[in-house]
């Protein structure tokens, strides 16, 4: 029983990475119609950002947690302005290829400097060791990641659900053209939303650094799974992507216990089943427009 709980807990912790990544992907996809393949690369850059800041300048984890997502968010906005925007009017494949190409460039640049070997990142002081949550001891850092990710997800949800900006983003994510016809300058919001999505990816990268070793390919392994999460949650559904993120994390962790070796495959089996049963995803809406 307590073993199972422990696995479920680990699943939730992994799920919180999926949730943060999927949330950003879903908002970007909804508003721009762009499948941002570089999302995994920005996750990796987030982790490397923290790693480089620590090793080159002695910057602590806590400062990196703030600075790295902000800086990469700005990089994301520039990327949207300078490259993605030029291709949005074309076939979606062009932006998919662009972001895929950027991923390879980012990965190889870091590989040239740091090699492919995973690099360790120390757990922040104060979060080493374990905390006793009654049933058994949990690693303190993992508890922090889970709580922090839930808070960020709730914060993002409040921003989207309760503010005028959030209302505009929801509308523009659902139907960008109609939103323009309602007098909203959707174009003005695209760069900030792209940057926001990238910042979330970078944030989860920084969070991942002390848990997983930092390596140029750490995002590539993750991104395919996160695509499955977004599809299961419902393309463009903000709530669905977060819920599916935690759900898939759990499923994968429990899968590891009962059907080891099939845990990751089971995510894609679930994706296939969901697509057959509800083509718009668990929380997605069927298209009404032709």
């Amino acid at each position, binding site marked *: 029983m307590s073993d199972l709980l422990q696995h479920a807990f680990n699943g939730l912790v992994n799920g919180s990475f999926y949730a943060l990544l999927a949330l950003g992907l879903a908002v970007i996809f909804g508003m721009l119609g762009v499948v941002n393949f570089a999302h995994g690369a920005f996750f990796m850059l987030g982790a490397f950002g923290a790693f480089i800041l620590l090793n080159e300048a002695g910057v602590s984890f806590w400062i990196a947690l703030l600075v790295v997502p902000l800086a990469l968010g700005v990089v994301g906005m520039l990327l949207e302005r300078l490259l993605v925007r030029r291709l949005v009017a074309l076939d979606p494949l062009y932006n998919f290829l662009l972001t895929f190409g950027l991923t390879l460039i980012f990965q190889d640049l870091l590989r040239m400097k740091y090699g492919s070997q995973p690099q360790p990142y120390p757990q922040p002081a104060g979060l080493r060791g374990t905390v006793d949550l009654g049933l058994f001891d949990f690693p303190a850092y993992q508890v922090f990641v889970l709580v922090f990710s839930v808070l960020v997800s709730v914060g993002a949800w409040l921003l989207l659900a309760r503010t005028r900006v959030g209302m505009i983003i929801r*509308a523009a994510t*659902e139907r960008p053209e109609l*939103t323009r*016809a309602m*007098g909203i300058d*959707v174009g003005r919001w695209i760069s900030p939303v792209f940057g926001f999505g990238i910042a979330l990816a970078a944030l989860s990268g920084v969070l991942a650094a002390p848990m997983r070793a930092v390596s140029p390919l750490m995002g590539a392994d993750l991104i395919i799974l996160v695509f499955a999460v977004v599809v299961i949650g419902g393309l463009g559904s903000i709530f669905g992507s977060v819920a599916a993120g935690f759900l898939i994390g759990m499923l994968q962790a429990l899968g590891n216990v009962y059907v080891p070796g099939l845990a990751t495959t089971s995510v894609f089996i679930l994706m296939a089943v969901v697509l057959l049963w509800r083509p718009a995803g668990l929380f997605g*809406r069927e298209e009404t427009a032709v």
Partner: protein
Amino acid sequence: MVSPLLSVQGVNASYGEAQVLRDVSLEVATGEVVTLVGRNGAGKTTLLRCLMGLHRPTAGTVTLDGNDITHLPAHRRTRRGLGLVPDDRGIFASLSVEENLKLPPGVSDSAWSVDRVYESFPVLKERRRFPGTKLSGGEQQMLSIARVLRMGARLLLCDEPTEGLSPVLVHQIGDILRDVKAAGVTVLLVEQNVRFASTVADRHYLLAQGRVAQTLDNAEVKEREHELLEYLGI
């Protein structure tokens, strides 16, 4: 004739290779209700999309109040007083009824307050916390029209507001449009139902294969109703 509120001159539009609108010209005066009738595929919706700035014409000009708006982006056209009621009603599923009303920014002094909308459409007040698409078809249509009134639009572009509605609801939409007209709002209405059209509109443009084939007044529509219904395939 006083200078028209809306004037369309020689508009052509295509989707890829297919030309959908050919040299379309028409005028709508302030306070008029004018319909566009025509078969499916005659180009009515495309024309509304060109007027709203959602589709780029390949030739021709669109002027509003004498100002050329042909190349103005959609969101700036709403600020000039254009309000779209799209053919699928355009209700956002991820927004509540009230958020659907509040999404467009008010553009003029004649913008309705949310309270005034609720007074005129009590059912929307009852359901204000519902997701927009949980409303029935007729309620969604009311919401779609109420939304552009709340924005303060001076020229409503209504794309088949009666489509798929029961006779009772069609009647109700007719009442709403007559109220809107009485309030001085101008309406360009796409409508297949010529009988309904002649009860709310002043004039009619018959669109065929992307061209304005004829202009008709209400008397002519009544006289030729059978012929028109047959032509429209209803």
